[in-house]
């Protein structure tokens, strides 16, 4: 499904300008050495929201710029870096800059990124400087038994078939890794008079629920690296907790794998199974998007 995100833009701009006003007011109140944690947190949250929203709604230049502010503020609020007057000044300049950028975007103009680029470099210099305390040990998140959801955008180049490769095999292999949901895109199929029967015009978006790592997904497409466009994004996942919900999901993932193996077995040795197996429903859900 495609949702028009522009309906949310105006609210995003309004709340972002409010956030910038808050940031500015709180920054002007700050006395390095006497700052209180709640003020820092408020400034951080404002930057965090602007970064999150701009990323979500596609304003990537804003998201990238705000990222350095957020990183600096995060270090300060975690106690990893002490706030200095230089930081406050830099942040105030950044707030001004963001106001300009968001204003241009709101007016549907091409934003002028020159000032932001300069400021971003200054932030990066600050961040590269030795922090005051070693960053707190981040305990390794054991992803061992977590089930992740990946979004995989797969676009074979037109000539893929001529390399002897078949997307269907790759899709089957992907499906072996877990639960696969498929969306096929037909928009690249040319007019019938231009259609060549040995070219690949389809591209797909998959959502894969798997306890495997991203490396396992990349492996599926190893041989065709140069002949396809692949984008893999981690969307989220479930913790391996002993909740009935997660247990059901884990069972489903294993069942999907079992069914595939069963199907493969059946194809190879149809007489090996004594009882009549239940008809196997495909775990794939094919949704064709309108051209």
């Amino acid at each position: 499904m495609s949702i028009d995100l522009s309906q949310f833009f105006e609210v995003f701009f309004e709340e972002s300008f409010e956030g910038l006003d808050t940031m500015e007011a709180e920054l002007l109140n700050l006395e390095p050495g006497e700052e209180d944690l709640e003020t820092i947190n408020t400034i951080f949250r404002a930057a965090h929201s602007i970064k999150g929203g701009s990323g979500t709604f596609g304003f990537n230049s804003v998201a990238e710029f705000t990222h350095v502010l957020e990183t600096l503020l995060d270090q300060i609020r975690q106690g990893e870096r002490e706030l200095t007057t230089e930081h406050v000044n830099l942040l105030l300049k950044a707030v001004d800059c963001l106001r300009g950028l968001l204003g241009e975007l709101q007016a549907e103009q091409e934003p002028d990124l020159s000032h932001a680029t300069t400021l971003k470099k200054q932030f990066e210099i600050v961040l590269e400087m030795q922090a005051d305390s070693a960053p707190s040990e981040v305990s390794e998140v054991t992803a061992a038994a977590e089930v992740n959801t990946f979004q995989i955008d797969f676009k074979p180049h037109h000539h893929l078939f001529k390399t002897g490769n078949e997307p269907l095999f790759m899709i089957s292999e992907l499906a072996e890794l877990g639960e696969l949901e498929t969306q096929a895109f037909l928009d690249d199929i040319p007019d019938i008079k231009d259609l060549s029967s040995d070219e690949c015009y389809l591209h797909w978006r998959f959502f894969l629920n798997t306890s495997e790592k991203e490396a396992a997904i990349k492996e599926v497409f190893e041989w065709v690296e140069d002949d396809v466009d692949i984008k893999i994004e981690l969307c989220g996942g479930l913790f391996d907790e002993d909740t009935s919900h997660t247990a059901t999901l884990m069972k489903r993932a294993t069942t999907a794998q079992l069914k595939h193996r069963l199907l493969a077995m059946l194809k190879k040795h149809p007489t090996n199974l004594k009882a009549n197996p239940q008809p196997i429903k495909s775990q794939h859900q094919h949704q064709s998007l309108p051209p």
Partner: protein
Amino acid sequence: MKKILAVDDSASMRQMVSFTLKTAGFDVTEAKDGSEALAIAKQQSFDAVISDVNMPIMDGITLIRELRGLPDYKFTPLLMLTTESGLDKKVEGKAAGATGWIVKPFNPDQLLAVLKK
């Protein structure tokens, strides 16, 4: 119709999540911070809760911890919204009882893909 509680201090995010889920057939209630969410959750029962982590008054992780303490929400899917750079929050979330997480920024399809589980 399944009922979802969406919690985020950003109005535009709430609207986006709300719209996406409503379009997909869910009944959505919004809250702008953990404290409001907890109050709402005690008055009505929800099939799932999606919450941002960084919020004023009560943050997402505390909210999840509080919800897990309520008998009605012992087994309810509770999802946290995290950012790429905040993945270490996952550990805290897991300890608080979160069912899973969704990475911000996300597009509407990704939200639905994780939620479907």
